[in-house]
């Protein structure tokens, strides 16, 4: 157990280190940290003094160390475009993205798993085949187009739901977190973006659960369970579904990361004030400190999710516990 976990941890740390190196290279070499701090007519000696003061003449490892220690404390430098500390910018937008992504993942599990079980069990049924066809179409329609079509239907034609923004938000924990869950306009604003973001994920989950169910239903222990006279419900859910969970958990874990990435698109369509939009603006404006910070944040997020997924494996699959020394989880 300890070896398994520590191996995973070491790998995660290595990934974080590499990402931090890339982010630092961007921050320190591609972008010029003092470019934004000086006026056009600053003399060379002023520039030199500033460089010395900011430690830009220090050896690269020293600067790298300073960048990492800053990043750990949430200090990512100052945005070129917003002229504000990047850490504060991200902290402001984090809640919006997390509420959107969290709700979407929940939705996609609630939609994807039952539909996957159903289509897996009734493979040749008319409804199941219809669902599969719809899901293929769903995968082929890009996220942003789904968002646009939802806006056109529910905001423009029907006028039921807002098409942009978060609506009214409530500040929690002394302003550290803002939430749209407690106001009507906040909840209404969440619906369309969350569905947009969840649709692609739920089709993925549905197709995966279906494929896994088909595999499992062919196995001998299902036949034996039936032969023992167990009820369908018990066979389907206690025996079959339980054993499809391994890959499903991995994929849902990975989906969490994907959702954060696809949130960039959804946030752009719905002008959602989240991290994704901040990052997108940073790319458009070549705002390097924000890009570097987002890179580190997202890598951290992915590493944590992967780690949790691996540990969840460990909890679900008893085989791992017996020969855990091999660190057996496949990637």
């Amino acid at each position, binding site marked *: 157990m300890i070896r398994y976990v520590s191996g995973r941890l070491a790998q995660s740390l290595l990934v974080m280190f590499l990402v931090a190196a890339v982010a630092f290279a961007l921050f320190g070499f*591609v*972008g010029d940290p003092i470019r934004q701090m000086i006026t056009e007519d600053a003399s060379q000696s002023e520039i030199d003094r500033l460089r010395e003061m900011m430690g830009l003449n220090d050896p690269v490892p020293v600067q790298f160390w300073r960048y990492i220690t800053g990043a750990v404390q949430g200090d990512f430098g100052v945005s070129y475009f917003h002229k504000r500390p990047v850490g504060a910018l991200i902290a402001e937008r984090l809640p919006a993205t997390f509420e959107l992504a969290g709700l979407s993942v929940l939705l996609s599990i609630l939609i994807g798993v039952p539909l996957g079980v159903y289509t897996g069990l009734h493979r040749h049924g008319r409804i199941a085949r219809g669902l599969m066809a719809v899901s293929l179409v769903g995968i082929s329609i*890009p996220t942003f*187009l789904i968002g646009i079509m939802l806006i056109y239907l529910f905001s423009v034609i029907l006028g039921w739901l807002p098409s942009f923004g978060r609506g009214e938000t409530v500040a929690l924990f002394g302003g550290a977190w803002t939430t749209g869950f407690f106001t009507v306009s906040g909840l209404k604003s969440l619906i369309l973006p969350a569905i947009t973001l969840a649709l692609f994920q739920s089709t993925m989950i549905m197709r995966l659960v279906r494929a896994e169910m088909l595999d499992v239903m062919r196995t001998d222990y299902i036949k034996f369970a039936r032969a023992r006279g167990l009820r369908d419900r018990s066979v389907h859910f206690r025996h079959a579904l339980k054993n499809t969970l391994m890959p499903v958990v991995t994929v849902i874990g990975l989906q969490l990361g994907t959702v954060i990435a696809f949130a960039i698109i959804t946030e752009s369509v719905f002008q959602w004030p989240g991290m994704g939009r901040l990052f*997108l603006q940073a790319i458009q404006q*070549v705002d390097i400190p924000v*890009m570097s910070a987002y890179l580190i944040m997202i890598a951290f997020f992915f590493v944590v999710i*992967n780690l949790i997924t691996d540990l969840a494996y460990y909890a679900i699959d008893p085989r791992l516990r017996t020969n855990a020394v091999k660190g057996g989880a496949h990637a």
Partner: protein
Amino acid sequence: MPDTNTNAVAPGAVIAPKGRWHRLRDSDLAHSFLSSPVTVAAAAFAMLMILASLGAGLIAPHDPYDMASIDIFDAMLPPAWKDGGEAEFLLGTDAIGRDVLSTILYGSRMSIFIGVTSVILSLAIGVTAGLFAGYRGGWIDAVIMRIAEIQLSLPTILVALLINGILRAIAPPSTLDSIAILVLILSIGLSNWVQFARAVRASTMVERGQEYILAARLIGIGGMAIMFRHILPNVMGPIMVIATLNLSGAILTEATLSFLGVGVPPTQPSLGTLINDGTDYLFSGSWWITIFPGAALALLVLTVNLVGDWLRDALNPTLG
């Protein structure tokens, strides 16, 4: 290419020295193709779109980039069958009076061009990396596969956006518009190589132990020649499947990046740009400016996906 594929499916099935066309027609692949009406329809539609967009200059009713032919008084006309539509503009016009059908044709050309070139780039990178990883093994393999693993755990669109951002940061600001297409191809191409590399690596490791490779090494053929002249032709089968499946993904990624405003320059729009331009007019009810390019994009991706799925199942049932 056709006969390598047929060989892969049915080695030695047709021995009689017939013409290529006959061999193709009698092959399992062709049979499987013709017995799937959905695939035939999808392939026909995809071909139609590709040909139409390639011939955009010839068949488009208007030239949307010829400023002289655009009349602002034609702006925002609905499709021809709606009230106020004109027969001259079948799918209506956009905010500056361009014919939507023509912009779609030119836009698809840009989308398909970027999609195809970036898949070729991914293929070149992935195949090379896979050959080296599989043939050389050791630390080269370890490094390449570790990078691949990290990249694979990140969504393509995120990697493409990051590479896009980094390239934009490195490039001098004044050149951004002129190199935008190159930046786009690089960012999509670099974000998609992993699948190729993994497939090629796996097959290369199998081929490496084969006798013909040992024989080639014995007579002193160099590593590069063995990898690219001897192993490569034998691992191309799955690569074509992955390339087809990746094409739809690449077209989607391009559309998304262009939609997000970090793709093609506004002067050379792709389908994604057109959709993005159209969203501004959605609220005034001019849905056709957005929905038609969107439908074109979705149909293109769907048909390419269907062909790719079929190809995967037909060539190698275990690949999926």
